[in-house]
């Protein structure tokens, strides 16, 4: 699974993307956040207030209850500010 980070989430994590292999019990975005937050101090800081973080699974917006079991690409970012 590829995990992508954007904007200040990327800056806090210190990575724009990484390839991870979470265990099978990581079935939702929320559980993936729990699991990722333990990877480094940067990850922990980025996910400290998860209400600020939006997520997309395979390039489609999903909330934190969305499934990630069969995802190939999961992204985390702040609310969008384009336009």
């Amino acid at each position, binding site marked *: 699974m590829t995990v992508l980070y*954007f904007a200040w989430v990327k800056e806090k994590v210190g990575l724009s993307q990484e390839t991870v292999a979470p265990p099978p019990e990581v079935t939702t975005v929320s559980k993936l956040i729990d699991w990722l937050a333990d990877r480094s101090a940067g990850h922990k800081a980025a996910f400290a207030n998860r209400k600020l973080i939006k997520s997309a699974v395979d390039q489609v917006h999903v909330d934190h209850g969305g499934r990630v079991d069969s995802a190939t690409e999961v992204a985390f970012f702040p609310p969008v500010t384009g336009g």
Partner: protein
Amino acid sequence: MFTVRVQNEAFNIGEEIGAFCAANSSSGGIVTFVGQMRDFRGPDWDSGTAVVAMTLEHYPGMAERQLSDLTAEAQRRWPLDAVLVIHRFGKLTPGDPIVLVAVASAHRESAFDACRFLMDWLKTQAPFWKKENTPTGATWVQASASDHAKVSRWKP
């Protein structure tokens, strides 16, 4: 024709809109929205902070996909002849156009509604993030609560 372009290169507003109108000269009405980079942040220039440059980060792949999906949804909702969406990413300087949405329809109501729908959704759904460079440093722009409120009127 329904076209979405997500690009690093600057674009010329007049040329793009002129070409769009010429290509859709049988459409009764054409509505366009242009968003340009402002040189200040805040309610107005005098009480605001100067912004000297901006970096627009985007999610390649998803950005194009979201904008194409929004365009397809607009086509389902209104009788449209053509749509053009251009969105910049990368480094911008004040006055640069950031976004252009152009909609052609036989009916001006449909053109207005669809253009506004596209902008409202783009603002809350398209994966772009603005970072402003001010004399005191660079900061990520905060999402606007009112943008999220605006989108609720388009719920099916």
